[in-house]
C-alpha cells in the first residue's frame, strides 16, 4: 500500500491502476479517463477505499462530502453510460462501479470505516470480532442463564413478568454500555486523525499509533459482542 496518499489532506482524484492508458498507451496523469482517447480506466483492485474515493485515511469524514463524491464517481462509471461503448470499456465500467459501491458502503458507516482502517493498518479484525468485554464476563454468563430461564417459563405467568423486568433492565444497561463504547471510539477516531495530520515520524508517534490501534481494536470487538447480545435480547423479549 502506498502510504504517501494517506498523508495528503486534500481529497485527491481517483488513482489509476496503471500509469498508462490500456487503450492508447499514452501516459496517464491520475484522471479516470484517458486525456487522449477518452477511454475509461480501470481502478486498481489494490487501492484502498479511502484513496479510491479520493479521501485521506481519516476516521472523521463528512457524510455529505462523501455522498457528493459517490454520486460524482457513479456518474463517471455507471454501466448505464457505457451501453454504446466497447466490451472492454463495459467491463471496466462494471468492475469500477462495483468497487466504488463497496468503497462507499464501507466508508459511509463510521464503525465499518474504523474496522476497515484497522484492517489496513494492523491486519484483519475478523478473528477477534466477538470477544466479550473482560469486566462484563460474569454478567453476561448470568444474562445467558436468565435468557434461557425466560424462554422456558410459561407465558403471562408471574415468573415471566419478573424475568422480563430483569431482562429489560439488563438491556438498558447493555445499550448504555454500547453507547459508552461508541463515545470512546469517537475519541480514538479524533486522536487518530490528529496524529495523522501531524505526520510525525518519531518513535513516540509510532507508540501513540500502536496504542490507538490497539484500543480501537478492543473497543470495536467488544462493541460487536455487546451489540449481538442486545439484538438477541430484543428478539427474545420483543
Amino acid at each position, binding site marked *: 500500500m502506498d502510504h504517501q496518499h494517506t498523508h495528503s489532506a486534500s481529497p485527491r482524484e481517483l488513482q489509476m491502476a496503471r500509469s498508462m492508458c490500456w487503450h492508447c498507451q499514452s501516459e496517464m496523469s491520475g484522471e479516470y479517463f484517458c486525456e487522449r482517447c477518452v477511454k475509461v480506466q480501470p481502478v486498481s483492485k489494490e487501492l484502498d477505499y479511502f484513496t479510491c474515493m479520493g479521501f485521506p485515511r481519516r476516521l472523521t469524514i463528512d457524510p455529505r462530502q462523501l455522498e457528493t463524491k459517490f454520486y460524482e464517481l457513479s456518474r463517471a462509471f455507471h*454501466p448505464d453510460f457505457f451501453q454504446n461503448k466497447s466490451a472492454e470499456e463495459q467491463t471496466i465500467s462494471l*468492475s469500477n462501479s462495483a468497487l466504488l459501491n*463497496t468503497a462507499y458502503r464501507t466508508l459511509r458507516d463510521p464503525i465499518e470505516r474504523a474496522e476497515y482502517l484497522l484492517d489496513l493498518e494492523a491486519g484483519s479484525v475478523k478473528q477477534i470480532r466477538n470477544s466479550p468485554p473482560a469486566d462484563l464476563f460474569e454478567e453476561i454468563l448470568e444474562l445467558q442463564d436468565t435468557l434461557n430461564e425466560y424462554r422456558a417459563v410459561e407465558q403471562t405467568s408471574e415468573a415471566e413478568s419478573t424475568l422480563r423486568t430483569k431482562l429489560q433492565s439488563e438491556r438498558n444497561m447493555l445499550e448504555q454500555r454500547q453507547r459508552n463504547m461508541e463515545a470512546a471510539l469517537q475519541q480514538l477516531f479524533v486522536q487518530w486523525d490528529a496524529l495523522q495530520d501531524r505526520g510525525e515520524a518519531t518513535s513516540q508517534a509510532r507508540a501513540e499509533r500502536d496504542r490507538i490501534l490497539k484500543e480501537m481494536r478492543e473497543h470495536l470487538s467488544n462493541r460487536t459482542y455487546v451489540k449481538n447480545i442486545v439484538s438477541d435480547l430484543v428478539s427474545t423479549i420483543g
Partner: protein
Amino acid sequence: MARIVGIDLGTTNSLVAYMADGHPLVIPGRNERTMVPSVVAMTDNGLIVGDAAKEHLTRSPERTVYSVKRFMGKSLEDVQGELAYFPYHLTEQGGVIRIKLGEKTYSPPQISAMILKELKQRAEAHLGESITKAVITVPAYFNDSQRQATKDAGMIAGLEVLRIINEPTAASLAYGLQQKTQGTIAVYDLGGGTFDISILKLKNGIFEVLATNGDTHLGGDDLDRQLADLFVKEIRERYDLDLNAYPDHMQAVRLEAEQTKVRLSDAMKTTATLDLPDGKGRYERDLTRDQLESLTMNLVERTLGPCRLALKDAGLTPNDIDEVVLVGGSTRMPLVRQRVQELFGKTPHCELNPDEVVALGAAVQADILSGGTTDMLLLDVTPLSLGIETMGGVMSSVIRRNTTIPAGAKEMFTTYVDGQTGVDIHILQGERELAKDNRSLARFRLKMPPLPAGVPRIEVTFLIDANGILNVLAKDMRTGQSQSIEVKPSYGLSDSEVERMIEDSFKFAADDVSARKLIEARLEAGALITTTEKSLLEGNHLIASDNIAATHTALAALTAAKDGTDPRAIRARMADLEQAAKPLTVALLNDSLIKGLQGKKVSEVT
C-alpha cells in the same frame, strides 16, 4: 443507436412505451387500448395473445394461459399450493415448469416471449421501424432465477434485453422526470401478482435506492381469489353445485370476482352475477365494500410487514419519508390507500396512471441507456442476500441484501485433502440461516490443481450486475489464470435450452405463418370451386365447348392442388381457373343482365 423500448411485462397486463421528445409515451394498439392482457391461448388456428386470447379464458380454459409471471424461474414444487387455481396443465422438466398446450409443452419464458413479441410488433407498427432492443421491468423482489427467466423470455422473443429494471424504481423515474422531486420517497407497488416496496433518495437527478422488500406471490390475483372462493362456496351451498368440475365456469368466477373488486373501488356496493351450468339458473350476490375489505384485510395487512422491514433496513422511520407513490392496479382499492396512508402518515401520490407508470419509467431508463437522457441515474440495490453453502449446511453471506448494484465480492477457496481436484460450490439467495431454507441459485465445481491440501488458492468473484443478475468468475491466484465456470442454474433454463427455444420460436413463427397461408388458400380455393361448379351448371349452354372443357381441366387441377400443402400452388391453380372460367363468368353476367332487363320497362333502365 437503434431505438430501445421500455416494456412492463406484467402478471395481468403488459405495456410497451418509448421516449418521444423527452416525454415517455405508452404505445396503444389498434383498439386504442394501451394494455395487452398477459394471456396466451392455443386455438385451432395457432397461438393468439392479448385481448383476443382473453376471450378464450372461459371458452377453452385448459388451453389459455394467464398469470404466467407467477411461474417465471420457479419449480413445480414452489407453486404446489396454488396449482388447483389454474385450469391449464403444468408439468416439470429439468427443474423448470412446463405448460401443456395441446400437443406441445412450453416453459414460462416461452409463453412470456409470445407476449413480448406482441408488444414488439405493436411498437414496430406504431413506430414504423424494426425493434430489437428493450428494457424490461421485473418486481424488485424477484430473485436471480426470476430475473434470468425474464431475460431468457426477451431473447426468445428476438429482443436484446439491455437492462432488467425494478418496477418500483422504474415508476420513480417516471415520477421524478415529471415533478423533479428531491427528498426521500417510498414507492408502494401492488400489482396483479406481486408486491414491492422501495425506499429511494432523490438528489440532483440521482435516484438512489436505500432499501427494498416485497412478496413475489402477493397481488390482485390473490385478492380476487378471496372473492372467488366465497362465490364458489356459496354456489355449492345454495345450488348443490361444485363449480370446480367446470373449468370454464371457474374462469368466469375469477373474472367476475376481479370485476366486482374493481367496481367496489368506486361504488360502496354492487351485485356479482354468474350464469350457472346445467340449467341451474343464475347466481346473484350483493356485496358491499365493507364485506370485500373484511375478506381482503389480511392480504393488505401482509404488505405492511415488508414496508416496515424496508424502512428499518434504510435506517428510517415513516416520518423520514417525504412522499409516497402508489403503483400497480391494485392500489386503486380504497383499503390499500387507507392502510398506506396510515403507515406513512401522508397522502400517497397517484397522479400518474398506476397501470402505465412502470412502462413509462422503463422508457425513461431506455432513453438513459441510449444516451438521450444524461442527467438522471438510477442506483438500485439487490433485494436478497447472496451467499454460499458452507460446512454443516449453513449459508455464509457474500453480498448482503440492499447492497447497491453493481456489487462485487471475492472469496478465496482451497482444498482440504492432498491432491483434491475440485471443490463444489452451491450459490444461494435469501435471508435464512440454513442453506436449505434459502433459494438455491446454482451449483458449480471449482477446478483445483492437484497439490497438497491448503496450497491451491482460487479466488472466486461474485459480481451482481446492474440487472441484479449474478456473474461468477474464478482465478487461480498462484498462476494468475482465469477459470471458466459452467454454472448450472437450479431453477432455470440452460444456455443451450434457451438457444433451442430461440430457434424454435423462429421455426414456430414460420410454421404458424405458412400454416395460416395454407388454411386461407384452401378456404378461398374451396369457395372458388363451389362457385365455378355452380356457374358450369347454370351457364354451360352459353359458351363454346372448348371453353367448358378448359374450365373443367382447371377445376380438376385446383381440386388436386387444394389437397396439397403448398399455398403458392393453390394460388397459382386458382388464377388458372379464374382465367379459364372467364368466358363463362362473362357470359353469365351478360345473361343475368339481359334477364334482368327483360322484366323491366325501358323507362326504368335509362
